[in-house]
């Protein structure tokens, strides 16, 4: 869409300040209501029975005993969730992931569910459901799954993207390729070539709030769903189509959300809760345990990646090649393809190729996790970049600066970049005091770059002006980290009124038009855009009302600093009309004053970050400590800097956990061995230092304020930055994430990989 391009060097009065968030008091007093905090009269407790097997045929499910237990109001299996997807395999996959259909595809796959008067009764009912399994051979490792003799997870899958099209079933759902130029020719021109293989283990988004919902469906086909989600409109559409309900008759309300990071963009047990409620004709509350969250929801991929990069002694990369193998869990997806697209996006490359494989295994369906797929690819590529720089004796920052993508560079995934921030983040890193800070014994410094696309999507916003001149801003994007504060700032900026006069609310699906899920760092970008246009729409009405009041031509009216002013000299005698005055008079000047906007917020600018970190390694135990960490990222324009910094810091912390200690550990039996926060080790407060941030503002031409999404990009560099730091500290190259103490100690003992220390 076309914007007023005067976004550069815009003067802002309110945007860029740091006022308190509107939901702050509710959240520090315990009043804020999250997924599990709702109650409905007569509500039942819903529990889900899950497969203990990684792969099994479900020969029979006997629910008769459970149904007879006093206090049990409904027991359901896949028979209660008939296939209404009309051949849409993608939709059927979603349904089958919610409830197994004749086969269990991973440890934790739902096979049946009960609704009962209380938790104790529901628990007993689950124990009374008898499932007759025929255990099948399973595969959980991505490389194993690609072998010819591997157990087949989805017999209907034929690899897409290979010629000739295969006739035999495979665990490889698709092969994709990106790049340009001639890599073989490029490698021939290289003075140095580094080729290396990497592995990353599966991690979970680890939001502290487990999935929870309260579902209510009546015999009249009308329903309500209270749920913790990143996208209640998407959940409504998906649940309605899976259950054969009318979209308009299912009202979905998004609770306060206790973290999502991509894991709450997909439906999991919500359709099951609705089906239980429909059968019991009572409200049903389903709250997952932490064990269920780990075993059955949203992890990201484990991967296996080969990278080959060639460069000349004068510091130019001549060719770059990556082969990426991503496991998507038990259902086909495009996570490997995304890894292929993002792998070399930071660099200006003449010859580049990325070949990506999406692979099925007996693990939970993979969900988006913050800049999905990019961190693993960046780990492999940025680790190799460091080794190439060392081989030719270049400083890793200078080497990256020399090869960084810039405006006009053809991205490795195809298009040509407009104005982008990779160069500036690298320069900022080079000049950052952190780079010059001294290191002690057993400490190493690492840095790395990261890229993420960002996107916008369908957005719809209402702005209503109350009779006292205060403004209620109604948005449809879920507030995952302070966006209500940012959007209120934007509305106040446009209208020229104080931030305190604006109250921003996230509407339910019955109160506003469709809004896409809050994902892809789109919340503040797209709802911000819609808020700007809704405010300008309201200002148009305000000017009309002023013109009416003054009985002059609306063309002679302008809006400045929250006031209508008459332009021409002949109107000099007219006093300005404030928003309050126009609002108070509105009943007699034409009724309520409101602004609206419906937009497809395309034009999200791509985003880049550069991170620097210092790590200390105990050479006798392999223990690591993060000594110092710095995040530098382009925000386009920071609306509320506190929450921009918060996104940078949170993403970095998740990356640190991923790099050092977080991993899914499966046993030979294909069962997840650490489905809890005790042994799935996310960083605790004492593990981390303060995380320094530097916000760069390279305005995005695609947004009236120049905003770029900031939520995801900073989870991309940490795996590589920390791997480079650990490798520099330990004197050996680490190639397996997470770099847990046993892996580091083993690497030190074996002295594997040549040391590239010396920084």
């Amino acid at each position: 869409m076309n914007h007023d391009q005067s976004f550069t060097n815009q003067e802002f009065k309110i945007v860029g300040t740091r006022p308190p968030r509107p939901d702050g008091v509710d959240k520090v007093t315990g009043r804020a209501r999250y997924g599990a905090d709702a109650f409905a009269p007569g509500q039942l407790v819903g529990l889900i029975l899950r497969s203990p097997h990684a792969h099994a045929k479900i020969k029979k499910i006997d629910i008769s005993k459970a149904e007879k237990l006093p206090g049990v109001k409904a027991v359901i299996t896949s028979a209660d969730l008939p296939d209404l997807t009309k051949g849409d395999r993608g939709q059927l996959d979603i349904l089958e992931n919610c409830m197994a259909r004749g086969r269990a595809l991973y440890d934790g796959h739902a096979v049946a569910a009960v609704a009962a008067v209380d938790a104790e009764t529901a628990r007993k009912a689950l124990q009374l459901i008898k499932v007759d399994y025929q255990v099948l051979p399973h595969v959980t490792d991505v490389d194993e799954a690609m072998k010819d003799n591997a157990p087949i997870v989805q017999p209907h899958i034929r690899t897409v993207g290979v010629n000739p099209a295969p006739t035999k079933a495979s665990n490889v759902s698709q092969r994709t390729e990106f790049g340009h130029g001639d890599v073989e020719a490029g490698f021939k021109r290289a003075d140095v070539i580094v080729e290396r293989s990497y592995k990353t283990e599966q991690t979970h988004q680890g939001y502290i709030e487990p999935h929870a919902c309260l579902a209510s469906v009546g015999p009249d086909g009308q329903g309500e769903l209270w749920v913790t989600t990143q996208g209640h409109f998407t959940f409504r559409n998906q649940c309605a189509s899976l259950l054969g309900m009318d979209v308009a008759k299912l009202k979905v309300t998004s609770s306060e959300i206790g973290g999502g990071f991509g894991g709450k963009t997909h439906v999991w047990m919500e359709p099951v809760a609705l089906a239980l409620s429909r059968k019991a004709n009572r409200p049903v509350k389903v709250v997952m345990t932490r064990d269920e969250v780990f075993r059955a929801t949203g992890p990201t991929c484990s991967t296996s990646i080969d990278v080959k990069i060639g460069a000349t002694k004068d510091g130019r990369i001549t060719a770059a090649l990556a082969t990426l193998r991503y496991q998507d869990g038990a259902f086909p997806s495009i996570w490997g393809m995304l890894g292929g697209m993002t792998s070399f996006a930071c660099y200006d490359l003449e010859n580049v190729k990325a070949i990506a494989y999406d692979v099925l295994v007996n693990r939970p369906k993979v969900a988006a996790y913050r800049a999905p797929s990019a961190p693993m690819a960046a780990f492999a590529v940025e680790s190799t970049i460091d080794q190439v720089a060392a081989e030719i004796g270049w400083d890793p920052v200078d080497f990256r600066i020399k090869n960084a993508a810039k405006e006009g560079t053809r991205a490795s995934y195809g298009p040509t970049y407009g104005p982008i921030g990779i160069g500036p983040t690298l320069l900022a890193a080079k000049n950052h005091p952190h780079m010059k800070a001294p290191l002690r014994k057993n400490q190493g410094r690492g840095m790395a770059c990261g890229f993420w696309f960002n996107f916008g999507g369908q957005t719809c916003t209402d702005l209503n002006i109350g009779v006292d001149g205060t403004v209620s801003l109604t948005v449809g994007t879920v507030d995952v980290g302070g966006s209500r504060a940012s959007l209120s700032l934007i509305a106040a900026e446009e209208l020229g009124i104080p931030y305190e006069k604006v109250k921003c609310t996230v509407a339910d699906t019955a109160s506003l038009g469709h809004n896409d899920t809050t994902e892809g760092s789109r919340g503040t970008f797209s709802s911000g855009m819609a808020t700007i246009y809704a405010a300008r729409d309201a200002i148009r009405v305000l000017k009309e009302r002023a013109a009416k009041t003054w009985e002059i031509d609306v063309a002679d009216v302008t809006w400045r600093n929250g006031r209508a002013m008459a332009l021409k000299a002949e109107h000099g005698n007219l006093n300005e009309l404030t928003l309050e005055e126009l609002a108070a008079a509105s009943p007699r000047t034409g009724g309520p004053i409101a602004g609206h906007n419906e937009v497809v917020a395309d034009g999200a600018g791509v985003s880049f970050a550069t991170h620097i970190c210092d790590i200390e390694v105990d050479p006798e135990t392999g223990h690591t400590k993060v000594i110092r960490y710095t995040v530098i990222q382009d925000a386009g324009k920071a609306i509320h800097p506190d929450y921009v910094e918060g996104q940078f810091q949170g993403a970095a912390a998740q990356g640190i956990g991923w790099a050092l200690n977080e991993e899914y550990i499966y046993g030979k039996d294909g069962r997840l061995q650490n489905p809890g926060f005790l042994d799935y080790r996310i960083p605790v407060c004492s593990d981390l230092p303060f995380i320094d941030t530097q916000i760069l503002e390279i305005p995005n031409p695609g947004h009236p304020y120049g905003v770029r999404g900031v939520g995801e990009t900073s989870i991309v560099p940490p795996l590589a930055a920390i791997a480079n730091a650990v490798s520099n500290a330990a004197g050996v190259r680490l190639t397996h994430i997470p770099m847990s103490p046993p892996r580091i100690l083993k690497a030190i003992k074996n002295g594997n990989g040549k040391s590239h220390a010396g920084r």
Partner: protein
Amino acid sequence: MIEVQLSASLREFAGGAASVAVEATTVRELLRKLVERYPRMQKRFDEGVAVSINGEIFRDDRAQRIPEGAEVYLLPRIPGG
């Protein structure tokens, strides 16, 4: 007339061609004409497609105008976290 660059995953539907020339002034017209020529592309478009025009990625706005001589790139639609 614009030259549409196809990502590798789409080339197989265009007989391996890396780019094809299409007479189109909007994203909607572009996608329609591609499907007329390569019916099998429809499935990929249904799964999700994004159009990059001079480096700016459009995922949804089918009415988006494509200037003459613009760099146009067809990409898979990208999910996020």
